[in-house]
């Protein structure tokens, strides 16, 4: 029996559970997935997948006017022994394993990149040090493609850092062999003018475990599209996200877990704090349980903490279930405010104002941060959250 629940709170939170013969997750996209940008019409902003995104601030990534400049971003990959790092041309077939672009910007990225990075962890290699990928914007425009592939039973941690200023559209593929374990931390710590639009495709083999931690602090516009699908039973995906959206920033996370195979699990938890005028966070959580995916167990959660007036959250969980033979399925979305009454209450107990804010935000993120399981990343996140708070006081 499926445990289906939907707990929306806050005026901008919507949620739906559909039990349908035909997937609306797929059909409400403007065009079917394709590698060719010409297969997607230029979005005008009213399409379901674009309606929250400020197209005018995408610097032409969506309409074909963005052109790659020579030194757009500098990508450096630091990998321990047992890892192969290659730069390959467009014809390398490993670039088309994990999933097709699903919207115009992802297709633009695929149609426009010149060289791709392929990082391969040999089968059964268990890395003791993380693979570190630095993507540093140098003020230009770039189209990127990266593939991280783990052979069967390989285990790896990848930390991808995005810094500097850039206009970047990219596809990032994670291909997990049978029994492989991959943790990816993607940190968007861009300068405040950066625009970053990316699709992440994770493809999980039999009994593979994928943990994604998406952390978004910076940028003018960041729009990420993490997607997961499975090639065989037994796959497990954990998708964690943390964002801190400041005045004027648009940070959008659109997730899709496609349960197309029996006996796989997924757990999605994204939490965001917002402060300042016109801070805008968007979270779309699509989970599709296809008719074949018996025994699926899935849960997705989004929580937002609005710290000041003038910020906006759009949180839309969608759960589509095409079979009743599942272990569990649920979602929850809630948006809460930190307001003057809460501040008064804490201060009336002797707690100074700045500490009161810090207490609330730390507490809000703590549970999620603990689930990351990488102490140095956890410490860095806490420090970053503190820095964001300091900047606001």
């Amino acid at each position, binding site marked *: 029996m499926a445990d289906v629940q939907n707990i929306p709170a806050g005026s901008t939170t919507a949620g739906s559970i559909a039990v349908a013969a035909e997937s609306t997750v797929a059909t409400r996209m403007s065009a079917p997935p394709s590698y060719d940008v010409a297969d997607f019409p230029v979005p005008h902003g009213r399409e379901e997948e674009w309606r929250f995104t400020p197209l005018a601030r995408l610097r032409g990534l969506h309409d074909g006017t963005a052109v790659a400049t020579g030194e757009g971003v500098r990508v450096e990959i630091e990998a321990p022994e047992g890892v192969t790092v290659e730069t390959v041309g467009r014809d390398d077939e490993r670039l088309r394993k994990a999933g097709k672009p699903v919207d115009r910007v992802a297709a633009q990225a695929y149609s426009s990149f010149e060289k791709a990075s392929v990082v391969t962890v040999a089968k059964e290699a268990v890395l003791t040090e993380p693979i570190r990928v630095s993507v540093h914007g140098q003020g230009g425009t770039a189209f990127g493609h990266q593939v991280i592939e783990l052979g069967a039973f390989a285990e790896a941690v990848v930390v991808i850092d995005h810094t500097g200023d850039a206009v970047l559209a990219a596809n990032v593929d994670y291909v997990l062999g049978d029994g492989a374990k991959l943790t990816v931390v993607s940190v968007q710590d861009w300068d405040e003018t950066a625009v970053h639009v990316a699709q992440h495709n994770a493809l999980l083999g039999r009994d593979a475990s994928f943990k994604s931690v998406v952390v978004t602090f910076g940028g003018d516009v960041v729009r990420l599209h993490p997607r997961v699908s499975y090639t065989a039973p037994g796959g497990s995906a954990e998708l964690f996200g943390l964002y801190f959206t400041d005045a004027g920033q648009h940070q959008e996370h659109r997730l899709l877990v496609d349960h197309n195979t029996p006996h796989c699990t997924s757990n999605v938890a994204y939490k965001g704090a917002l402060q300042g005028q016109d801070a805008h966070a968007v979270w779309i959580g699509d989970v599709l349980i296809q008719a074949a995916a018996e025994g699926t167990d899935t849960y997705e959660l989004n929580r937002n903490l609005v710290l000041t007036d003038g910020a906006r959250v759009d949180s839309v969980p969608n759960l589509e279930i095409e079979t009743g033979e599942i272990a569990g399925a649920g979602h929850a979305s809630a948006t809460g405010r930190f307001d003057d009454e*809460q501040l008064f209450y804490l201060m009336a107990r002797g707690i100074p104002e700045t500490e009161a804010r810090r207490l609330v*935000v730390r507490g*809000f993120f703590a549970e999620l941060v603990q689930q990351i399981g990488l102490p140095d990343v956890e410490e860095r996140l806490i420090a970053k959250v503190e820095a964001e708070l300091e900047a606001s006081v």
Partner: protein
Amino acid sequence: MATLEIHDLHVSVDAENGPREILKGVDLTIKQGETHAVMGPNGSGKSTLAYSLAGHPKYTVTGGTVTLDGEDVLEMSVDERARAGVFLAMQYPVEVPGVSVSNFLRTSATAIRGEAPKLRTWVKEVREAMDQLSMDPAFAERNVNEGFSGGEKKRHEILQLELLKPKIAILDETDSGLDVDALRIVSEGVNRVRSTGDVGTLLITHYTRILRYIKPDYVHVFANGRIVESGGAELADQLENEGYDKYVKGGASA
């Protein structure tokens, strides 16, 4: 000996058609060890008095003085008042998402005491205080006031009172919404704090019921923004029998 002196206190709130005066010259002195009950009809300004003393930003003091051992309370920020020893148990405690009760209590105690309490003695202190208030230990892991029942919220307020040991405790309608069992438990908590002799208590209430459990030294009748009559515990009995009618006629709005 700690003394809170309120002299000719005038307080306004912003209303649709300009500021509206709610407190119209309150005089009251509370000494350590004393318990004062302030009783009055709804709308008389009792809660405004409580929140004004704690420094809620909604209320503007337009005249008068409040001092604690000679220090000007009105000049202090909300947190400074708390650290100076003023505690307000709220009628409607606020939910604070993301902050657990245990984290909140420890942060608060650290601020009030000026140093972090030693962990081992602190855990014991909290556990005993919770036990005396018939609170489940699991309570400490819940978010502050989030999903608490009315009775749980009030017990949580009194738990803070017991742990923070203020000089002056203001209890704003702590009895409202409590059944008899909860009222007894909460009152016993207040009485434990009073029995130390270290606290001056200002007990704000509409009903005489709580005064069966918490015996006041003084009773004040509050109507139309000021104290209109003061007496001993016998004044409460008179109110019990006669109600507030004779104080509100031609005066305060109900």
